């Protein structure tokens, strides 16, 4: 009697299913790795490079052709220039096609040759800052007037080639970017600001979201309208609401200041986004304002799925409203609250636009992400910006470790 045993390994059906799955995923994997994985690797590469914004355009020879002079004294001028002031360009060659109307009359410059109508030069290496003219004496063929000749000569674009050492691809590495990033107190100030912003922004948005969700967790007329209204801050474009806040809290013409002065809360106008530490508090408040709708929505969805039997039983046992909230609702909401906390924590940590638009990172509001922009574009040191980005990425990996460790059970991932 043969023993029946379950098949081992992958069967043909299973293999076919896996093949289909991978082919369905392939486009996504390809594009995402092209635009996410590759840039991440690039960030690591660049963070070890001494590279500024100006180095992005690799040095190249620049050539301009013109037909000069008149009568018998005609010449073609090639004006050649090295675009870089500090890098040499090697193996520079020029190729140009001359029109029939031009006839060579004198000597060619060194390194140049004319074969038929093709004019070519091999100029070797151009020094940094090289800027010279190559003159080739010519005359016009019979019956050609100067204007048409000029047009014909300048009509064909001359080709120029050269090899230059690009800072992006050469093997020059440095740790200077990192030492600059970690240098002195500045890094710890930035880190402190980031942590303050992230912790208070996240916790604040969660608490306000919880409060708003409790308000709307009952049905009454106008509940739908209020729910839609409370989502406004999240749905509106960040650029619109950020500029509105800047306007509203403007020290000279802001309505908020006028209101506070009128109510007698303050005597002088307050520069909300311009002084420490108020600016940091204000950007955190903005963050809470903008993202409480999100927590509100999630918490409300969870609240509405809690079984009402439980509350009825509690009513029978004589539990008071606060007891019901503390002993029944809160434990039921703990799952969604912790998921929201971790996700919001990560995304607040990553937030860039809000602070950038509100204060531009001034007045003690420079977080890590704003620092990336500041280093890369304001100081024009792309390498240092990339180094900050690497620091952010390292923090992110640490957070996501926690995320998958503690939260994946909740999310079912």
């Amino acid at each position, binding site marked *: 009697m043969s023993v029946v045993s379950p098949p081992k390994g992958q069967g043909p059906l299973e293999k076919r299913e896996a093949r289909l799955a991978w082919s369905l995923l392939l486009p996504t994997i390809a594009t995402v790795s092209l635009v996410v994985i590759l840039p991440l690797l690039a960030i690591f590469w660049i963070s070890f490079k001494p590279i500024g914004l100006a180095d992005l355009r690799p040095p190249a020879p620049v050539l301009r052709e013109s037909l000069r002079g008149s009568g018998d004294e005609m010449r073609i001028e090639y004006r050649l220039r090295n675009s870089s002031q500090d890098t040499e360009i090697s193996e520079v060659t020029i190729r140009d096609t001359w029109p029939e109307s031009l006839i060579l009359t004198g000597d060619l410059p060194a390194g140049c040759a004319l074969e038929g109508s093709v004019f070519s030069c091999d100029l070797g290496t151009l020094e940094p800052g090289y800027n010279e003219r190559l003159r080739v004496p010519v005359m016009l063929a019979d019956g050609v007037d100067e204007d048409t000749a000029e047009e014909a000569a300048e009509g064909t674009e001359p080709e120029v080639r050269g090899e230059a050492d690009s800072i992006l691809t050469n093997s020059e590495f440095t740790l200077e970017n990192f030492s600059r990033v970690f240098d002195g107190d500045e890094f710890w100030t930035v880190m402190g600001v980031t942590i303050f912003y992230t912790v208070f922004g996240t916790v604040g948005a969660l608490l306000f979201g919880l409060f*708003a969700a409790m308000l709307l967790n009952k049905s009454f007329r106008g509940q*739908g309208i*209020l729910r839609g*209204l409370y989502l406004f801050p999240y749905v509106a474009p960040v650029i*619109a609401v950020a*500029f509105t806040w800047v306007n509203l809290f403007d020290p000279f013409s802001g309505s908020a200041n006028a209101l506070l002065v009128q109510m007698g809360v303050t005597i002088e106008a307050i520069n909300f986004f311009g002084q420490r530490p108020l600016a940091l508090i204000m950007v955190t408040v903005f963050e809470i304002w903008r993202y409480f709708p999100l927590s509100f929505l999630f918490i409300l*969805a969870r609240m509405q799925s809690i079984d009402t039997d439980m509350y009825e039983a509690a009513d029978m046992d004589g539990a008071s409203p606060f007891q019901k909230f503390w002993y029944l609702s809160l434990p039921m909401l703990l799952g969604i609250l912790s998921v929201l906390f971790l*996700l919001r924590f990560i995304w607040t940590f990553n937030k*860039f636009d809000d602070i950038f638009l509100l204060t531009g990172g001034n007045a003690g509001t420079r977080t890590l992400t704003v620092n990336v922009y500041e280093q890369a574009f304001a100081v024009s040191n792309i390498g240092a910006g990339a180094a900050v980005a690497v620091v952010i990425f390292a923090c992110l990996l640490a957070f996501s470790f926690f995320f998958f460790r503690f939260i994946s059970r909740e999310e079912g991932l």
Partner: protein
Amino acid sequence: MSFLRFGYVTGPTIGALWLFILATTVSITMSFATGDPFRPSLVISLVLGAVVGAVAAMEMSKKIRIAIIAAVAFLPTLVGFGPMVMESTAFSQGFAALALALVLGWSMVAIMKEVPIGPLTRHEMEEAWIRFLTGFGYIFFTAIVLIPFYVMVMTSLKSQSALLQNPLDFSLELDKGWALFRSYHELFRDFNFGTYMWTSFFVSVLTVIITLAFSIPGAYAVARLRFRGQKAFSRSVLLIYMVPMIVLALPIYIAFSITGLRNTVIGIVLIYPVTTIPVALYMLQGYFRGLPAEVEEAGLMDGLNRLQVIWKITLPLALPALASVSLYVFMIAWNEFLLAFMLLDDPSKFTLTRGVAMLNSSEIPREHLMAGAVIATVPVMVLFLGLEKFMTKGLTAGSVKG
């Protein structure tokens, strides 16, 4: 907190706080509406509020209590010695005092519903406080959401010099007629906002289409098909979803500069979907998991292959999810600012958000900036309010990003 369990303690405490909150609310509302000074007076509010709170807990008929409370609030306010101090026209002063008195009377009695003046049970006490907190919550959230949007719209309709004179005066000069919308007109005429709007719309719609084309098959594979690495894949989707844009923006900027894609709309259309594909994939796979597998298996038994099953069974069933994902992706693309700001320099190719950023300069009057903000906000708001049901569903379907 046992001392709170007496009607004559809880009532006046709530009353004092509530009157102050209402006086502040009415003052702010009236200030924004008229531009004249209205302000709450803290001490008088607290004292009068305590009286009002005690009255609300008395054993009298509801109408009489409302009348007494309204009178207590109305008369002193009118003679200038009430919870609200104001300097305005007689009409708005009377209106403000009346509004405060009526709202106070009605809400105070509602808060103190079934709360006797004597000893209270824990239930009665807590319920009164909860009603108070609820009222406060509605006022608070509505105010913080509405005020910025109100200021945004009104600033766009007023001239900068008028606002500098009195930043609180948002009253509109209605006799100006269509000239009120001058800044909008100028934005569309001189600043190309029509083109920007079209570019934004075009880019957002393309982003939605491309995102769906990539994420539907991917999400289906992750949700339904069994293959090795499925778990790792869905985790890495989430991980990618967490990579900050500014980290990617830097290399993308470099790559686009080198390849010449910077400053082109095509470059933007290429890059936006990649930022939204992980979100869409994550949302859709959650929805596909919730669909009954039996229907699809029936389709397979009847001779359809997998791709036909996706096309003929899964997608029609998932239409609501597709709608909410599309809306959400549209919103992300429409609101996107960072990449547009970094990659576009040429004013003829701006998206709307980039165009608004351009208006933020000291040479351009502020009403133009705010008009730009309104133009950028209105389309998403209309879309959102019209399709709110899809939107809220989509937002809760696994997207916590912002």
